[in-house]
C-alpha cells in the first residue's frame, strides 16, 4: 500500500514540488505559472487523497525554483499549498505560502472601465478575504476582482 502510494506521482531528482493544492485549483495554478511554456519535465497529479483537503493536486517540476512573485500568485489561488524543494531526491526545504496584504502587477482588474486596462500601469490590489476566498480590491477603481475572475497581466 505504502509503495503504491509513492508511485502515484513519480519522484524528481532536483526541483520543486507544489503540494496540497486544492484539486479544483490545479489547472489555474498551471495557467498562472505559465507552465505550458516551460520545457523542464513536469509531472501533475490531481484528485489525490488528502486528509486536509479531501482531494488534492500536486505539481512536480524538475530543475526549477520559483521567484517570490510566483509564490504570491500561487498563494492567491491556493493559499493552503506548500512548496517542497528537492535536491538529490530529498526534501531540503519547505515553504508554507503566505497571502500577501498587497499585490503588485500579476493580475488584471476585472473592471473593463478601469484606467489600468487602458494604460501601462503597474496594477495594485489590496488583498481582502471574502467568504474564505481571496478577493482583490483595485487601488485605482475600487472594484473587487474575485478569484474566479482572475486573469493574469
Amino acid at each position, binding site marked *: 500500500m505504502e509503495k503504491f502510494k509513492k508511485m502515484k506521482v513519480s519522484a524528481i531528482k532536483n526541483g520543486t514540488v507544489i503540494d496540497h493544492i486544492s484539486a479544483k485549483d490545479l489547472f489555474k495554478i498551471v495557467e498562472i505559472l505559465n507552465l505550458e511554456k516551460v520545457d523542464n519535465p513536469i509531472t501533475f497529479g490531481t484528485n489525490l487523497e488528502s486528509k486536509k483537503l479531501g482531494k488534492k493536486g500536486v505539481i512536480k517540476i524538475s530543475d526549477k525554483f520559483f521567484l517570490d512573485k510566483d509564490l504570491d500568485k500561487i498563494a492567491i489561488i491556493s493559499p493552503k499549498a506548500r512548496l517542497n524543494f528537492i535536491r538529490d531526491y530529498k526534501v531540503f526545504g519547505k515553504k508554507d505560502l503566505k497571502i500577501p496584504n498587497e499585490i503588485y502587477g500579476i493580475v488584471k*482588474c476585472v*473592471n473593463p*472601465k*478601469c*484606467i*489600468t486596462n*487602458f*494604460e*501601462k*500601469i503597474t496594477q495594485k490590489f489590496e488583498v481582502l478575504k471574502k467568504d474564505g476566498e481571496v478577493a482583490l480590491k*483595485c*487601488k*485605482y*477603481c*475600487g*472594484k473587487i476582482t474575485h478569484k474566479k475572475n482572475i486573469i493574469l497581466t
Partner: protein
Amino acid sequence: MKNKSLVSITDFSLEEILKVLDRAKEFEKNTNQNILKNKVIATLFFEPSTRTRLSFESAINRLGGRVIGFTDPSSSSVTKGETLKDTIKTVSNYSDLIVMRHPLEGSAKYASEVSSVPIINAGDGANQHPTQTLLDLYSIRKTQGKLENLNIFFVGDLKYGRTVHSLLMAMSHFKPIFNFISPERLKIPEEYKMFLDSLKIKYFEHESFTDIISEADIIYMTRVQKERFADLIDYERTKNIYILKNEMLKNTKDNLKILHPLPRVNEIDIDLDENPKSYYFTQALNGVFTRQAIISLIMGL
C-alpha cells in the same frame, strides 16, 4: 491639506471635511476674493460635463485665478492617442492645480501619482466625485444647522449612484439614520450595508414611498437611468414609482429639504420647485462656494 490631491472623499479626514465646510461658509459671505491672482488652474474635461465645469470655473474666476484646459477631448491631443500620463505630465508643467473629469475609473488616482501638482477629481466614471459630496454636506449642514443625528432618505438608483455612496460614507461620521427607497434591482450594494453594520448605523430599506417620509430631515433624490434596465417596459414602470410630487410633502417635517445632484429627468415633479422644501438649485449654487474652499485650501491659501 496643502498640496494634497482630492481623489476620493476618504482622502479627507473628518477635521479636513469640517475645515472645507467652514471655509465655504466664508466664501458664501464674501464670494469675490482675489486670492488666486497669478495662479493658473487647468480644467481637463476628458468627457463633457458642462454643469460641473462651469461650477469649477466660476469658483476659480471669483477667486481671481486663470483657467486653461479643454472642455471636450475631441479638441485636444487626447484624440491623437496621447496617454493620460503624458497629458497630465505636460499640463502639470503649465499649471498650479489640475481639475479633471475622465470617463475611466481610477484615472484621477493615477493622475495624482504622475502629476507634480495636486489633482482634484471632478468625476472618474462611476467611481468618485468628492467635490459633489462636500457640497452636499455643506447643503445639509446649512439647512439643518448641524450634521449629527439626521434622518436621511436616499431615493432612486442606489446601486450605481456614486453620489449616494460617497455621501453615505461621509455622513457616517455623524450618527445618522438612513432610509433607502429603491427598486429591487437598484438596491444599495451589500458592501455599503456591511460598512453601516460595522459602525452600528441604523438603516431601513423600502421599495416605494410611504408615510415614512414624514420622518425625513433630508430626501436625496437620484436619477433612475434607462441604461440600467434591459427591459424598456420595466424601466417606464419603475421610473414612475420614484417620482416625488408636491402633494407628497404634506405631512413632512418643517425642516425637510429635498436635494438632488442634478440634472434631473422627471424624478422630481416641477410643481415642487416653488415649495420652500425644495433645495436643489441652491445646492448647485453651494457647489461654487464649496469648490472655492477646496481649491484655496489645497493651494495653501
